[in-house]
């Protein structure tokens, strides 16, 4: 079709992963550019996302779209096949609710639980468990949040289903366990086993040392503060 589609991302970022997965689900070819976000951000990154200076950035025929959830909505509205949002406005509103819940509550607390100092960890962990229980209720017996197939909530929940699971391994935590959250655990297994999901997930053996380093950095910065 002669379209130019590029994703500026970071290989370990759960947010840029979302953009890539969405494009793969739509069968859209794109060029991936890895940004050195911890070192030198490129001029292009600063040009295409001047307000937040972050990844992911989707570039479509020269136009830049930023913020992972905004990107997901854009991809859905531009490539109108293999839809991953419900058509019904109420169901769509429900999906958007869970997406916001994951991004504002689940994911941040789970990450916090991973690196919090000992004395704060229990409180944060309890909070994270409450959020996981609530998120699990959104599954409501379905295979995926989107029903029989992966939907936008699943794409966003990959942050919890994959990235947090890896983080927990490193920290020896067992928050997302099969006995505590059987449905959510099963979902994360089913999700990670989809071939299209696996294609662009950062490999565990690379991710483990990276997250270890990131946790150490957070703990160090927190101790200094």
């Amino acid at each position, binding site marked *: 079709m002669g379209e130019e589609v590029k994703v500026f991302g970071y290989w370990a970022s759960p947010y840029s992963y979302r953009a890539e997965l969405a494009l793969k689900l739509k069968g859209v070819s794109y060029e991936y550019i890895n940004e050195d976000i911890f070192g030198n951000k490129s001029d292009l990154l600063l040009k295409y996302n001047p307000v937040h200076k972050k990844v992911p950035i989707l570039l479509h025929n020269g136009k830049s779209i930023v913020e992972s959830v905004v990107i997901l*909505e854009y991809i859905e509205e531009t490539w109108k096949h293999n839809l991953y949002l419900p058509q019904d406005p*109420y169901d*769509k*509103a429900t999906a958007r609710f869970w997406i*916001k819940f994951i991004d504002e509550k689940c994911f941040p607390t789970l990450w916090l639980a991973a690196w919090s100092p000992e004395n704060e960890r229990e409180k944060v962990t309890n909070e994270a468990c409450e959020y996981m229980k609530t998120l699990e209720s959104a599954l409501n017996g379905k295979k995926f949040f989107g029903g029989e197939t992966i939907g936008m909530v699943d794409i966003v929940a990959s942050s919890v289903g994959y990235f947090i699971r890896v983080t927990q391994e490193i920290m020896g935590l067992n928050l997302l366990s099969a006995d505590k959250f059987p449905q959510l655990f099963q979902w994360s297994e089913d999700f990670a086993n989809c071939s299209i999901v696996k294609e662009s997930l950062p490999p565990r053996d690379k991710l483990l040392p990276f997250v270890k380093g990131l946790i150490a950095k957070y703990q160090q910065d927190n101790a200094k503060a």
Partner: protein
Amino acid sequence: MGDEDVVLLDFWPSPFGMRVRIALAEKEIKYEYKEEDLRNKSDLLLKMNPVHKKIPVLIYNGKPVCESLIQVQYIDEILPHKSPLLPTDPYQRAIARFWGDFVDNKIYDLGRKLWTTKGEEQEAAKKEFIECLKLLEGELGNKAYFGGENLGYVDVVLVPFYSWFYAYEKCGNFSIETECPKLIAWAKRCMEKDTVSKSLPDQDKIYDFVLHLKKVFGIE
């Protein structure tokens, strides 16, 4: 469209609630407004928003929709041809959503700091608040509204904070109009519309409310 049963659980000073009021007014959707006492939340609120227990909650034919940005998009989608709030082009929609998120992530928290903090912390919040408003002015450009010639999504998301500006200015000891005249001109333009002016409380009332809150929370 027949008589739908629409209820809005709200709290009069909430800028989030105001967004929904404006959207409903723009679409000429009749609804029942229910004022919540946030220190004594109703059973209906707890039942309709069990996850967050917050207002606003839009109850449409018995089914709840929560979170103001989601509610505004929902209202826009059920009556897409009447006073459309989001544009039809996906890229323009992405831009609108970006700025809606920007307002949501920045303005409320910074505004809150303006009346709950003092000294260095307040000065820092003031500086960042003005910077954010200037970025928004840049996005507005020469348009009458963020939505172009008519009120759009970003206008609905941002204008409620105008009712809080006087309180911010008094507490922060600064003039928003001096720093961001274009934005104030835009806000006044929005207020010329009934759908906006009837959805926002008086700035004086908000200031009185803030003074009351400062007393209650023991903030000087």
